[in-house]
């Protein structure tokens, strides 16, 4: 019996140089082509963006403590929520899981040494940096008050410089995103190791693959849209600006043709994370592998057909609206399949409530609420009433933040030992998960109520004025709910800081991580923690990534190790039971 490379490596000591200490100095990072280092650099950039966007979010919430708005004038308030939205969407969520964790783990999960185009990968990171610089300059110029959607005609009437700055930033970030997606699709297509058929790929890779397809097909449309918008604002080309015979609704069509699929760029990798973490922490084979894999692709494709549901009240024809509404409901099917399969995976599983698992459980709860409230917005009659209210705000925060951000944190806790070779403090991790869960619901659940009571989004005050009359009862309700929401946001903020603190403290005080602390069966757990520069000495041979029966807890290692093969059947030829 020949030992697998993984077993050979298991026996070696930890002395081998890993990707973090194989070389040092600024240049060794700035010009690195190593996907792991690029992933780490992305992670740092994304974390800074999250902090920035989060501060703006807290400012928005604090401002709304008083009905008249407590902190800023209306114009400044508009700028703050715009920056919150734009930074969170373009700088944080879209690159979050794919560009940082995807970059780090996609090649390792494939048993490859790197992504297909390492230089393009580095270029993608620097494009992200340049795009971020454009955003920061738009912020410093001040006056970006269009909302993250840049709707015409307002975006071509308000001050030009920050809008042009921000749209150029979006254009450049788009290329960054395209490069990442292209790299992932090509890498998965051409660099899978022997034994890894399409349906033996870890589900995280399926979701990154589907994400890559969306990034490739949707982002260029956003690119041309913001390019034309920039030309409209500077040269008045008359394509979107009604003052020059343009059509503002055309802008909305173009914008949402990208930005709706972009929602799936944000959520699909998060779903991949959940599909990856759940079976590990339930010690049970994933339920309905093929359905989860194919539903990712189905979501990616259906996601292109529903952009009109953002425009039910933008003078679409009634027929168009009905068609878009129907197609919108169809997206619920693959999403429902996923949630069903996740629940079925947990059923009779052996649950380990690690921090990662706690976050995954909150994901399931929050994403389900977010998804189900999407049905209210997808049906025409209710959407007309709820459009542009806090109901919409609550809905997409449940999906984007309760979905993507929570899964991102879950993934960070899950893979932190592999990325940096250090174990985090489980107690503090769980406390953060609890605070985030409670804080999140306190923040956003009241917003569903606010929205159904008629509180419009993006308003700087709710004391009532001409065109927005607020009765005494309404004012009391609004005030109470806004204050609950603001309190929740503070708790949420504290929870996120504790999560970040736990992870950062692990780097300094954490005990050394074993190869496989959680007993995962995907390839990243067979290489050293942290991985060596080229990930693997030999291209590994792989089998089903969700069979845990041949892993055994070793108290000496404080981690899992592969059982010596009991039968002459090599591990990779075993089929899942049932």
């Amino acid at each position, binding site marked *: 019996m020949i030992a697998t490379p993984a077993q050979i490596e298991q026996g070696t000591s930890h002395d081998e140089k890993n990707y973090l200490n194989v070389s040092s100095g600024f240049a060794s990072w700035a010009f690195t082509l190593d996907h792991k280092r690029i992933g780490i650099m992305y992670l740092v950039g994304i974390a800074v963006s999250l902090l920035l966007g989060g501060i703006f979010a807290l400012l928005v919430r604090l401002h709304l403590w008083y009905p008249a708005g407590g902190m800023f004038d209306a114009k400044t308030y508009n700028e703050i929520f715009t920056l919150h939205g734009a930074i969170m969407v373009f700088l944080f969520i879209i690159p979050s899981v794919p560009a940082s964790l995807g970059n780090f783990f996609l*090649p390792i999960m494939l048993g*490859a*040494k*790197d*992504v*297909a*185009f*390492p230089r*393009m990968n580095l270029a993608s990171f620097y494009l992200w940096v340049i795009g971020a610089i454009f955003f920061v300059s738009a912020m410093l110029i001040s006056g970006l008050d269009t909302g993250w959607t840049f709707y015409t005609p307002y975006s071509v009437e308000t001050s030009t410089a920050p809008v042009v700055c921000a749209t150029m930033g979006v254009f450049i970030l788009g290329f960054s995103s*395209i490069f990442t997606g*292209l*790299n992932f*699709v*090509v*890498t998965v*297509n*051409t*660099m899978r190791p*022997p034994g890894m058929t399409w349906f033996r790929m870890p589900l995280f890779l399926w979701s990154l693959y589907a994400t890559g397809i969306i990034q*490739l*097909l*949707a*982002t*260029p*449309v956003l*690119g*041309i*849209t913001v*390019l*034309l918008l920039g*030309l409209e604002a500077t*040269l*008045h*080309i*008359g*394509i979107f600006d009604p*003052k*020059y*015979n*343009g*059509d503002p609704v*055309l802008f909305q*069509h*173009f914008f949402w043709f990208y930005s709706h699929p972009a929602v799936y760029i944000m959520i699909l990798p998060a779903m991949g994370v959940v599909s990856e973490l759940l079976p590990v922490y339930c010690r049970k084979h994933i339920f309905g592998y093929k359905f989860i894999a194919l539903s990712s692709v189905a979501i990616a494709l259906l996601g292109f057909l529903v952009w009109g549901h953002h425009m039910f009240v933008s003078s679409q024809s009634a027929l168009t609206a009905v068609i878009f509404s129907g197609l919108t409901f169809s997206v619920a099917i693959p999403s429902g399949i996923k949630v069903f399969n996740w629940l079925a995976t947990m059923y009779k599983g052996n649950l380990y409530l690690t921090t990662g698992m706690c976050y995954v459980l909150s994901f399931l709860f929050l994403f389900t609420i977010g998804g189900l409230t999407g049905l209210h917005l997808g049906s025409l009659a209710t959407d007309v009433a709820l459009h542009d209210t806090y109901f919409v705000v609550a809905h997409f925060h449940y999906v984007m933040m309760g979905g993507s951000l929570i899964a991102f944190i879950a993934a960070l806790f899950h893979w932190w030992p592999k990325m940096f070779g250090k174990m985090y403090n489980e107690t503090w991790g769980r406390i953060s998960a609890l605070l985030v869960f409670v804080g999140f619901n306190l923040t956003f659940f009241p917003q569903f109520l606010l929205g159904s009571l008629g509180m419009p989004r993006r308003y700087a005050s709710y004391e009532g004025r001409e065109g927005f009359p607020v009765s005494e009862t309404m004012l009391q309700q609004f005030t109470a709910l806004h204050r609950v929401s603001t309190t929740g946001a503070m708790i949420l903020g504290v929870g996120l800081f504790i999560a970040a603190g736990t992870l950062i403290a692990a780097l300094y005080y954490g005990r050394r991580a074993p190869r496989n602390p959680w007993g995962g069966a995907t390839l990243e757990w067979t290489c050293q923690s942290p991985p060596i520069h*080229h990930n693997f000495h030999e*291209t590994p041979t792989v089998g089903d990534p969700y069979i845990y029966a041949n892993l055994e807890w070793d108290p000496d290692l404080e981690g899992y190790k592969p059982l010596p093969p009991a039968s002459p059947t090599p591990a990779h030829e075993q089929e899942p039971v049932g």
Partner: protein
Amino acid sequence: MSASAHADDHSHHRFQAHHFETGEQQFQAGKLGMWLFLSTEVLFFSGMFCAYAAYRAAHPQIFEDAAKFLKPELGAANTIVLLLSSLTVAWSVRCVQLNDKKGLLANLIITLACAGIFMGVKTVEYSIKFTEGLFWRGGYTYVEGSHPDLGPTHERLMYTGLVMLGIGVLLGVIGIVLGANSVGRRWAFYALAATVIGAGVGCLAGNAYTQGAEGDEHHAEAAAHADHEHEHGEEAAHGEEEAEGEGNVAVEDQEAVEELEGTDRVDGLEHPETAEQAIEQVQSPGEIQAEEASADVVLTKEKLVYASEGPKFPGVFFSIYYAMTGVHAIHILAGIGVFVWIVSRAARDHFEPHYYGPVEYTGLYWHLVDLIWIFLFPLLYLIQ
């Protein structure tokens, strides 16, 4: 495994990246990457094609009329030039597969010269439109019946073309001098020289053709009109005298011109009496920006002034024209840059039958740029 091991034997080349198992795997990855990139390019242009379709569907007559300002002959010439360059690109790939370095370099140089010619002809087209005031919507200063003097533009274009020829020759000489000890650098300069000379030729030929064509038109109309000279940039005074000016390229119908003279100071809307008759509303310059609200479009066969849309409406056609051809031209420029690099690498013997990925990928890109032009040409120049 056995297949890849087999490929291993004779496909290890010096440019194989460490993370690929075989040269074949690297080639396939690059090719898939390029195809995916091309799909993003198609979608990038699709936004503008959609805008074109939306505006054309909404204002078909305006698009037809405005398109008459484009010269199909120049577009056709550019189409032929680009098709030729696609042929040479395909041929260059075949040459590198056959290890024919001379053929590879020759084909790439012809490709670059074609790209240069294309840009030269585009320069002529853009310059003349700018002189006539046919800008995008926001900068549109063309006034019905105006007849700017194109003489200085033609002269300038001629000098531009000659200067380009000079620069091209100079680049060639620099290549010979600087490239004494670097074959790659020498050929990069040759490639640039070919491009710039191509641009000069395109500029001169396009200019000469346009000038000739205008001379013919002028001749035909000379009998009916007195000569009006209009300086470039005099559009501020539009409204009165330009309306009386002689017919331009699009206005050949004498009746329409007379009708125009009669009604050019009418501010309100008038209803069309017959389809043949022209009714226009030339607003005073101050009002043009302010009110261009929608109402029924009043159309004539020959004229570009529309009662409902304001006299600047055809600018939207030119917005789309400049956006599409401009973005396409940027792609040509990018292609030129990459081809210069490919020529330089080819001259240094980097490519061989087992490693020619970059030639093939650049070729694919070039075919797509060509293909997009194949759509732009009929949509903008030909559909009537």
